[in-house]
């Protein structure tokens, strides 16, 4: 299992557009992927669940992956979160 903490950079937070880019990227990995914010956690491959977390700009999230490609998944997805600006 791998995990990493990153800050949401998207100007208006993780609304539909940036979150769907994230979900599409997450689906490319076999590992189970979760996104954790405060006490809430959501399936990183579900746009519905991600939207319930309310990820505003500046929120720090933990991306956790469990599976054969966990390490690549965490590093690629972390980079993605830090670079999506809107």
């Amino acid at each position, binding site marked *: 299992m791998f995990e990493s903490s990153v800050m949401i950079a998207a100007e208006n*937070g993780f*609304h*539909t557009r940036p979150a769907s880019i994230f979900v599409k990227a997450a689906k490319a990995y076999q590992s189970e992927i979760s996104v954790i914010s405060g006490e809430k956690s959501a399936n990183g491959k579900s746009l519905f669940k991600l939207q319930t977390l*309310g990820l*505003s700009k500046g929120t720090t999230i933990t991306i956790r992956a469990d599976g054969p490609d966990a390490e690549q998944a965490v590093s690629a997805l972390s980079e993605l979160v830090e670079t999506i600006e809107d």
Partner: protein
Amino acid sequence: MTYIEPLSGIPCSPGVSIARALVIGDDDIVINPTPIEDGAVEEEIARFHAARDAALSQVRAISDHLALSGKVEQQAIFEGHLVLLEDEELEHDVLALIRQSHYRSEQAIHEAIESYAKMVSDLDDPYLRERATDCRDIGARLIRNVLGVQTFDLGSIAEDTILVARDFTPSQTAQISLEHVKGLISELGGRTSHSAIMARSLELPAIVGVKNATLHIRSGDLIALDVEHNQIWVRPDAARLADIRAVQRQYALQREKWQALRDLPALTRDGHRVELCANIGTVRDADSAQANGAEGIGLYRTEFLFMDRPTLPGEEEQYLEYSAIARAMSGKAVIVRTMDIGGDKELPCLDFPKELNPFLGWRAIRIFFDRPDIMLPQLRAILRASAHGPLRIMFPMVAAVEEFRALKAQVCALKDELRADGVPFDEAIPLGVMIETPAAAVLARFLAREVDFFSIGTNDLTQYTLAVDRGNEQIARMYQPLSPAVLGLIQQVIDASHAAGKWTGMCGELAGDERATALLVGMGLDEFSMSAIALPRIKAIVRSLDYEAARQLAVQVRECATLEEVEDRLQAFARQNSGASEAYE
């Protein structure tokens, strides 16, 4: 029937339109609560999958269509919808409800979608909260496909129409053809709802939040939608219709003139520049500030965050709100006034003592000093939000230099705290005083050495200087911001700030009062802040002025002993100036 009184709501996209109504109902969805038989589970699941496939191909078609017509922004919404339709958690939840509770597909979808939508609409961030509409839009589409109900195709509208609905979904607004759709009216939604954002981007006149609009309006009714006055006339009579047509023509003319000025600076004919800003109460007002060409926010009244609620807003909630405003103004400066509660504004979340003279009582920073649990979270939230855009802090009701020093010390201590915690903020955030007590005006030359700016709150400055309660009707005529006593103090404040190399703005009603514009420019006022809607008119006046002439006007007015003399001078100048500026045009 004909309504004598117009309907109204939240004006969210300006303009005036007259056309027939088309009411889009959402009553064509009936959810059957009868459970399915044990043996029918697999069949029901197949029904869901078939509906989902159909929905996917519809949304793909819309997305492709938008891509072809170059509507990239709208297309992105539907790309998101595709991801939502294929969502594995949604599928999992729906199938579980079918298998375990024996729900029909439509009920299972409704149930699953509502549980997400509720969680999303409870979020603190106002922008993310509105995304609940996307969830429900997807739900409605899936259910329509399960039931075999056609999704209404707005592309097929062939005559001029004002659309009326409980709420517009993104798929509906994206299909709107501007050729025939002339306006939007909805029962739900605020200024940041999908319908509102879309209406503004399409420049369609729109009023949202109109209670019971779909009950009062029938398809085919003639509607006069006057967003300028926040009025919706249903089946107006001939006289009313003529009135609205006049408003419509007037609006079109004004708009042309103002539109041309929007991005031009507020510059006098001889090159003296002032700054024109907007007063706002919530993040929702930021768009209209931008649309009317505001160069910044001269007064953001934070007390709206504290009103109508049983508990005080926490630091986090305030931080989100202030950051949202900083971002919405995209790099333009925002003056955040710390909460100005007390006086005529009481709060359910604060235990207010009964006071004989509330305007002379426990108010604004006076509450701050007694209640660090209110002061510190607000100041911290503003400081943190300053990482997202240029914010300035302004303290209301200052009456002594030592008060400002104490507040500044608090800000410095909080900065140390944030720095130690590695929290980003603007180190150089300017601190200013709202000049609204005569004491602050008299002390302006001392305050000017310590502040970064002043902003004159003329409403209270007038009331305190003239000792006239502005809420008391019996003496209402004595409430005169143009009184030589008030003008004298204003001049003193402006001069004191300039002598110390600082600037002075004005955020009271007087700043947006066209009678006073020439005088205030001449007095050397640097920034004018007013309701967004007043901006274009004041800018037009500034641009018609000659600064040298305005300065002479100010010198003459300084010699006026009575209100009448001041008013006569201003009128004479206005007559002269309108002649001069016409010649100039």
